[in-house]
Structures are given as structure tokens and as C-alpha cells.
């Protein structure tokens, strides 16, 4: 088991990062920190995916005409990451705008400081 963890150290790091991000999202009451936690989660998943795509002594998946054929890493996870990055950027931007509006309304980005109120 531990040997497997050692082999897949990237995976392990990704998972730990994921949990750190999750913890931040839950614990921190500051919106900006929550957003940072979300980004940590996202990045950890990207890290995991790119490690999945890795191949020992593989080169970038670019076919150069006339070059000697050498093992190339897996392009599919990279494409998936590109998509996921766009999603992450969009989510973060939207969340930041919400935080901005929250700040305009309440003068703070700390969710606990704001008491519940009815419409």
C-alpha cells in the first residue's frame, strides 16, 4: 500500500490538496478565502488529471514531421484540463462578482458577520 502511495505520489498530493481546499471552503467564513479554497480544489483535480496523462520519458504530444518517433504523453487529459480550466475560471469570476456585490451590500466579505434577514 505505502509503496503504491510512493509510486503515485502525484495522485496523493492531488488528493491532499483537494481535501485542503474543501476544508478551507467549509471552515473559512471569509468569502475570498472560500473562493481560494475552491480554486485549490479545482487545481488539485487538474493536477491529478495531468498526472494521469503522464507517461514515463514521454514527450509533448506534438508530431513534428521527420522527427524520430518517440513515446508521447496522453493528449486527452490535457484537453480535458483545458476545458476544466475554462470552467474553473468562469466559476471563479462569477463567484468573485457575487462577492463584490455582497461587499457592496454589507460592507464586508465575512459571511458570519452578516445576520440573517428576511426580504
Amino acid at each position, binding site marked *: 500500500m505505502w509503496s503504491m502511495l510512493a509510486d503515485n505520489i502525484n495522485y496523493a498530493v492531488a488528493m491532499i490538496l483537494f481535501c485542503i481546499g474543501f476544508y478551507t471552503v467549509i471552515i473559512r467564513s471569509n*468569502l475570498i478565502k472560500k473562493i481560494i479554497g475552491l480554486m485549490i480544489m479545482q487545481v488539485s*483535480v487538474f493536477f491529478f488529471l495531468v498526472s494521469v496523462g503522464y507517461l514515463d520519458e514521454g514527450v509533448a504530444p506534438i508530431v513534428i514531421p521527420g522527427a524520430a518517433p518517440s513515446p508521447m504523453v496522453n493528449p486527452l487529459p490535457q484537453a480535458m484540463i483545458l476545458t476544466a480550466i475554462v470552467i474553473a475560471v468562469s466559476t471563479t469570476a462569477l463567484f468573485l462578482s457575487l462577492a463584490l456585490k455582497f461587499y457592496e451590500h454589507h460592507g464586508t466579505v465575512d459571511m458570519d458577520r452578516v445576520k440573517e434577514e428576511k426580504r
Partner: protein
Amino acid sequence: MSQHLAIYAIVTPLLAAVLVPIVSIWRKNWAMPMTGLVLTVSLVFSTLLVPQVRASGYLSYHLGSWEPPFGIELRVDFLGVFMMVLISAICLIVAVYSRKYIAPDTAKDGKTFFFYAEEMQEEKRPVYYSLLLLICAAMLGFVATGDIFNMFVFFELMAICSYALVAIPGTRLPIRAAIKYMLMAVPAAMLALLAISLLYSVTGSLNMADLAGLAGSSDYSRVITISYVLLIVGFAVKAAVFPLHIWLPDAHSKAPSPVSALLSGLIVKMGIVGIIRVTYSVYGSHFPSPLSWVTSVLMWAAAVAIIYGAIMAIRQNDLKLMIAYSTIMNLGYITLGFGLADVTALVGGVYQIMGHGVAKACLFLCAGSIISRSGYQKIEDLKGAYRKMPLTCIAFALASLSVVGIPPTAGFIGKWYLVTGSLNSGYPFLGALVLAGSIMAAVYCFRVVYYMFFLPPSGESWQNVSGEAPPSMAGATLVLAIASMALGIASSWILPPLRDAMGVLLAGG
């Protein structure tokens, strides 16, 4: 040409979503007609798909003409096309309703009673319509795709649009509701993405049909189980399965009413459709071990959700909050239909998706008409509403008949199948629970109906209400109400193919 219908039903709204803001730079009031036109096109295309799908069990479309495991495949089975028709129809009605709702005109005596009038600034209206189109396209793509990563992408598109639509009034409570929603939904989406990556890392494929085969014969069955659980959790947040429902009441009650109708009627259902999809088309067939306990967990969660949602709905005093909690309860019904893992119950659940979608959209739109017309949100303020807004109140009453499950409405059919299914799979207790739930539904629905129709207005209320909502709004609600009746009577045309489709699904296909 006909094989391209599915893709164009999805792509046309996507394109229109970016064209609507451009057009409305010069022509302000073309936004809604464009939206309506495009959604009609989608509706027509999805409806034209039905005969094809019924003829050949499912319809497979290879995008970029790459054969499946290498490219992305659209795989529309009967469940998919069923959902596509439902989605485009409800989105169309909501778009028609929204026209007067977000762009109110003042009443005869010059003063406008519209509640969101100052909150939906004029420059936000094209944005609203393009978000509406995007979310419709996202849902269509979500139910139509046959590729699990593509499913996730559409899921995210849908999620982002729904956050934005909840927050569109820009005032305090909608913003807070949207933040709460995102704080639960984004980590859930990340869990789903992680699950998909795990699945990919042990199978090397993303195509569902392909995965179904690989997952069965994989050496990494435990990883696949874990990825299944993570994926289910990711979808369950969207589906507001019981312990993960916390975001729902705020988001649904604070959003503008058409958006609440969309959220309650369709978007939460997408989570359950996703659960059904991945369970039966990816993991289920050759790999039944996760089903056994995960589905039973979901079943009991659903049982709790029914009771909890009903009790909370009875205790509410705010109209939209009550409807939102009733949504939690009905999601419990649908999840129960899935959790029983029995064909009849699943048919009941899916029929409930449709019946509840239509009825709940109608309830929220009626609440929107009443609130925007009179500003009253408390239930006891609705006394005597019938005298001022008869059509809206009638629509509300019909829809609540369906929510309660009075025959012959769509809700009744769904409950009938749920109870039969629970008897079928040896849980008569749950069947009784479903009926007890419908009694409680009667308590909270008929209370409102009783206030509306049989009580005189209290004091000065409803004095300065200028009367019925504009025809487009009242018409939209009435259409939905009548549909929820008709779907109960016409069920015999929908049920047999649905039962066949569910049979195929449960058999793993």
C-alpha cells in the same frame, strides 16, 4: 436530415444566446421574440425526435463523424427525448411568462405594482434571456449526450447559468442565496470531476456505452465503486437529496419567480436524471454491486425527505418558501422511485419528474404573478385573492391538485406507480408513506387554495390591486395547469414506451 435534429435542438439556443444581446443593442424588445422563436425550434426538433427514438430504441449521433470511443457521441434514448421535450416546452412557457414579468408596464392608474420592477434593471433583460437560452441548451445537451465528460461540461454550464439567474435581481437576499448555492454546488461539481477523472484513469475511456463494458471487466473495481459514490454525491447536491438540500429553499424562494419555476421544475431534476444515467448506463449493467447499498441509502434519504419537506412546507408562512419545501418533498418522491430500483417505481419516479415539473413550474409562476401584482408574499395575505386574480388562482388550484395527487392528474399517476413499485419491491411501508405524504401535501396546498377562494380579503388588503395579471402571464400559468391535468389523462400514451425504456435501462443498456 432528420438525424441532425438532436444536435440542432441543442446548438440553436447556444448560438442564439450570444446573438440576443447583440440584437438587443439596437432592438431592445426583440430579445423575447427571438428567445421564444428559438425555443420553439428546439421544441419542434425534440418532438420530431420522438418517433425516431421510439422506432429504434435509441438514437446515436457521432459528432465530427468520429466513431464513438474516439469522438463524442449523442445518445438519445426515450428518457432523453422525453426530458428534451419537457425541457424545451417548460423553458418556452417560462420565456413567454418572463416578458411581462421582467419588463412590467404600469397599470391603468399609472402606478406599477410589479415587485421586481426596480430590481431587474432594463440593461439586464437581454442578459436574462441569453441566460435562459443557455440554461435550456445546457439541459438539452445534458440529457442528450452519451459522453460522461461532455455530460459534466453541460452540467457546469447549467450550474453557472443557474447561479447567475438566482442572483439576477442583485439585491441582498438573492445574492446571499446564490452564494450559498454556489458554496454547495461548486465543491460538488469538483467531486464529480474528480470521480470522472478516477474513472478515466482506470478505464481510459469517456464514452458511456464504452465505459459500461470496461467497468464490468475492469481490474480496479474498488476504484470504480468509489468513483461511483463520488459521482452520485456530486449529482445529489444538485438534486437536493435530503441531507444536501440546504441550499434549495433559499435559492428557490429568493430568485425571480420564473427562475424559481425553472429551478424547481427542471434543474433540480437534472441531478436525478444524471444519477439515473450514470447508474444504469455507465455502472449499472455489468457492475451491480454499488447499486445495492447506494440505492437503498438514497431510498431512505428520500423517505426522510418526503416527511421533512412536507412538515417544513406546512410550517411555512411565506408562499414561495412553502413551494420550495414542497419541491424537496417531491424530489423525495422522485429519488424514492430511483432508490427502489424497480421498473414500476422508476417509471413512477420519471413520470413524477414530468408531472411535478409542470405543476411546480405552474405554482411558482402563479406565485410570481400574485407577488408581482400585489406584493403579498405571506400566505395569509392571499385571502380573497380569487376576486382580483381569478385565472391565476384557478391555475394555482389545478396545479396543487396535481401536487397533492388527486386523480386524474399527472401527480396521481406518478404516485400510483410509486406505490405499486414499493409494493412490488416489498416495501409496503414506503407505499403508505407516499400516500401519507400526499395527505400532508393536501394540508399545505389546500390551505392556500382555501384562503384564495373561500375567505374574504382581510381589511384593506387587495384594495389597490389593479386586477388580473397580463394575458401572457396568466395564459402561461393556465397552459401549465391544464397540461398537468392532461398529462394525467393522456398518460396511457406516454407510459408504455416509458416502461419499455426503463426496462431496457434497468437491464443495463
